């Protein structure tokens, strides 16, 4: 194991030395990556002009899918909410299955992958570009996204692979290929699964890695002058820690963060609630600003359409509904019926977007921190808003940012790895190659300026949704059949409450 760590460290040390030192290492990395990234970004975010604003088709793709699933399953996210809570609470857990993965554990792990810098920095970007009105569309997107998550996680469990050694692999690549081949569309299924896997690797390196590294560095460097301009150094440190966990297999570090992250989330939401309570007098104004911005035809920052695009985009990026990633984490659950995991998973966009993202944007709006065209965006805007009431909160935010970033990276390194092994087959050597690449991208991510990083992250994450949602549309009748079967079993008492 020590040898493997040494190799990882050696690989990482090569990167900075390869870059030119003329304009600084960071600039060199940005320059080198830009030309590769831009064409990908332009293709995925092909936009059409709608009412004078550029509307990226992919955002519409996600929202339409969420609306379709919401209607097709009859507003399952509202009807089934209570049942979801009961499942997570363990009311249906069979005591004989003690020791297996519980719905709560699957949800918590999937959440630690989604609750990341999207909730802190992404919302800052949304409000900066889209105005307070973006909040409204973000919440709506979160509520609709619950139905997408429901659909993809049921399929994830239904078509997972269970191996002889007791490990489980699931996710879109499996339901796309296995699910569609049942209908005699094996070739299409295989194509979509491969397309998804390629994008998933990109998404793991982009949104699940570079964006996280970039934004946590932004927060750290604004507080610790030593790191200013030394993105590569921060990245290197981060990469070594990530490498120790994912390559070295030192689980204890991961275990510590997995315990600290939920705690940080509680502190974050708690602080947000306190700020909202302190500024309660400003609540009516903030709410009217949110509604005015959400529907104003010609407001700032592109008006209602601008707010809608930003809100939807950031919500999708944060809660990953329709992207397919969470289905990989949810597939490991022990359940008597795949549908239970759908119910559990629909809580994810709710917690991630409707609760945590909304807190961030409310704090930004209520404290009046948003200034159009000021250049204060992303995590800097969120930090400024929290600092308005709690001076020194920037440090808490920095710790939260690094921890969220870390846990998201660990989760995404696994999602990426699963896509990688789907493409190239399982095997220790192949897996280490991917993990090394993953660590290298941590360094790249924290060295680049925000623009190219966000664009690339978005592009790859959203591209996953292209293949995933095509598959979801084709497989949704199967989900409906499973749902019918599940409710029949609930009614007959075959599946019943234990507590």
């Amino acid at each position, binding site marked *: 194991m020590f040898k493997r760590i040494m190799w990882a460290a050696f690989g990482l040390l090569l990167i900075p030395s390869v870059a030119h030192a003329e304009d600084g290492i960071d600039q060199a990395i940005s320059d080198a990556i830009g030309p590769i990234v831009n064409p990908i970004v332009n293709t995925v975010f092909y936009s059409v002009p709608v009412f004078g604003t550029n509307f990226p088709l992919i955002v519409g793709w996600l929202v339409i899918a969420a609306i379709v699933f919401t209607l097709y399953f009859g507003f399952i996210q509202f009807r089934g909410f209570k049942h979801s809570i009961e499942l997570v609470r363990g009311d249906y*857990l069979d005591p004989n299955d003690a020791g297996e993965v519980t719905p709560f*554990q699957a949800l918590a*792990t999937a959440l630690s992958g989604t609750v990341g810098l999207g909730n802190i920095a992404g919302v800052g970007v949304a409000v900066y570009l889209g105005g307070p009105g973006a909040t409204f569309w973000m919440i709506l997107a979160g509520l609709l996204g619950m139905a997408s998550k429901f659909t993809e996680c049921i399929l994830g469990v239904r078509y997972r692979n269970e191996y002889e050694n*007791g*490990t489980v692999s699931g996710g879109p690549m499996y339901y796309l290929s296995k699910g569609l081949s049942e209908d005699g569309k094996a070739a299409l299924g295989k194509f979509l699964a491969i397309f998804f896997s390629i994008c998933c690797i990109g998404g793991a390196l982009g949104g699940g890695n570079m964006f996280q590294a970039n934004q946590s560095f932004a927060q750290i460097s604004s507080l610790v002058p030593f790191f200013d301009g030394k993105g590569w150094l921060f990245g290197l440190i981060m990469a070594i820690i990530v490498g120790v966990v994912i390559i070295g297999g030192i689980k204890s570090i991961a275990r510590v963060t*997995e315990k600290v*992250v939920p705690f940080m989330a509680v502190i974050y939401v708690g602080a947000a609630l306190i700020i909202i309570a302190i500024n309660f007098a400003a609540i009516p104004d903030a709410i009217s600003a949110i509604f005015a911005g959400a529907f104003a035809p010609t407001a700032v920052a592109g008006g209602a359409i601008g707010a809608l695009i930003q809100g939807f985009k950031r919500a999708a990026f944060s809660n990953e509904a329709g992207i397919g990633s969470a289905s990989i984490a949810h597939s*490991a659950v022990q359940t008597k019926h795949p549908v239970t995991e759908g119910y559990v998973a629909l809580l994810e966009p709710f917690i991630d977007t409707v609760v945590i993202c909304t807190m961030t944007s409310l704090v930004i709006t209520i404290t009046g921190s948003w200034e159009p065209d000021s250049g204060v965006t992303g995590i800097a805007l969120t930090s400024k808003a929290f600092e308005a009431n709690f001076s020194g909160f920037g440090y808490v935010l920095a710790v939260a940012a690094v921890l969220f970033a870390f846990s998201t990276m660990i989760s995404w390194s*696994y*999602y990426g790895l699963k896509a990688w092994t789907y493409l190239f087959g399982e095997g220790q050597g192949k897996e280490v190659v991917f993990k090394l690449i993953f660590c290298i991208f941590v360094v790249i991510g924290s060295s680049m300026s925000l623009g190219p990083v966000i664009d690339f992250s978005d592009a790859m994450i959203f591209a996953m949704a292209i293949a995933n949602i095509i598959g979801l549309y084709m497989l949704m009748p199967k989900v409906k059949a499973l749902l019918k079967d599940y409710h029949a079993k609930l009614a007959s008492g075959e599946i019943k409450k234990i507590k």
Partner: protein
Amino acid sequence: MTDIYVVGFDGTAHASRALDYASARAKKSGAKLHLVYVLEWSPFSFHTPEELAERHGRREEELARAQSVLQPVVDALTAEGVTTTSEVRHGHAGELMCEIAKDKKAAQIVIGRTGESALTQRLLGGLALTLAQASPVPVTIVP
């Protein structure tokens, strides 16, 4: 009806002391022994996705390992003429021991003292303390 003694047993030295004590009593009184091996586990803990994916296999391994610790002991006691049964469970040791004692209508629970200081016991909620507070039957703690 013969008495049943529920014994917490995980193969450690203190568990062995508890078992020695319980089997000596059982031989005298003709009671049955029921050994319980608890694998500490919470349905509300946090794990990495990799751990979740491997969980089912790990669980099987844990159960097999626990069984391999229990089986020789059960066989030896049976050979000595003490009727002995056993089970392996995942969960919270205190809760499970109470539940099993209740279900089996046990005469008493016997556990070994782990030898932790009072402070660690208090902080970590030691098994002995939990049982002392929650057990439905008398508890013997063997030092």
